[in-house]
């Protein structure tokens, strides 16, 4: 059993259209680094210089990692990680 990572629609073109991918347990940042090897470009959309971008939120089992240990938050096999970018569309 791996870590299940929910990919938001705007990033699914980097994951061959997959809405969920599997990742390795460890920390949030190691998970993202490893995913970037499999899905190049994903890492830089979510993080920069080892830090999560401030307009992209990462949740481990519905908990915002900013209020846990941020990039160093641990993820275990069976956890669900959600990547949620800010979106703004609505009117035009």
């Amino acid at each position: 059993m791996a870590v299940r990572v929910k990919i938001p629609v705007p990033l699914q073109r980097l994951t061959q259209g997959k809405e969920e991918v599997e990742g390795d347990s460890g920390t949030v940042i190691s998970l993202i680094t490893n995913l970037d090897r499999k899905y190049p470009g994903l890492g830089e959309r979510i993080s920069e210089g080892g830090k999560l971008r401030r307009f992209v939120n990462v949740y481990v089992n519905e908990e915002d990692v900013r209020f846990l240990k941020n990039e160093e938050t641990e993820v275990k096999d069976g956890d669900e990680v959600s990547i949620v970018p800010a979106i703004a569309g609505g009117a035009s």
Partner: protein
Amino acid sequence: MEFTEEQLKRYSRHIILPEVGGKGQQKISAAKVLIVGAGGLGCPVGYYLAAAGVGTLALVDNDAVELSNLQRQIAHSVKTLGVNKADSAKKTFEALNPDVNVIAIKERINSKNILELIKDYDIVVDGTDNFPTRYLINDACVMLKKPLVSGAILRFEGQVTTILPGDGPCYRCLFEEPPPAGLVPSCQEAGVLGVLPGVIGALQATEVLKLIIGKGKPLKGQLLIYDALGVNFRKVKIPKNSDCPICGENPKIKELSDSPEQYCSI
């Protein structure tokens, strides 16, 4: 306020619900809701709130209806091409329900006019298309303690949350800052499935009605994410950020300001 025979009939399916009843319908009739943006989200939100009999409905938009809007902006039509969107939607909503006082505000909302525009309303609905306006609406609602029902859409995905200032997190607690300009494609470039704002707008209208009648659990402290392709509804928690620049313990933002236009998403 007493309902007429006609109104009793019009709202009978509401009144028969124990959670709404005559009292709830009276609250709906007395409510004043302001919707920013009479586009993809503003159309379905306004349409359903007008049908529900919300007493006063203000629509803020200074854009004109274009043909490319009609794929999703259901309050407009070929007859109102070139007409201001607030005016166009006002006509549609009044035709559906003449009880509703629809006010078209043909202005672009900004740091100078927003407080004056929202101060007399009970609830604000965000259906705008850019980050600076979203942060501005959030900040103004926090300052005036106005409940804010926020919705956003892009491509096949939507987000909804209800912000109750003083009683839960705000939009800045959720996303600390907007994506930098230039990094992101515009909504026009990225596209949106026409029915998506219908789903998200209907959820926003539901939240508004729940707040008005005071029933159920508001979607506060949570972000609801809808993925149309995967048919997933997910909720994540939004913790209140004690360092939030607008609603935290030592707010840094004391005055509203306008920032340059930016678009959409990563």
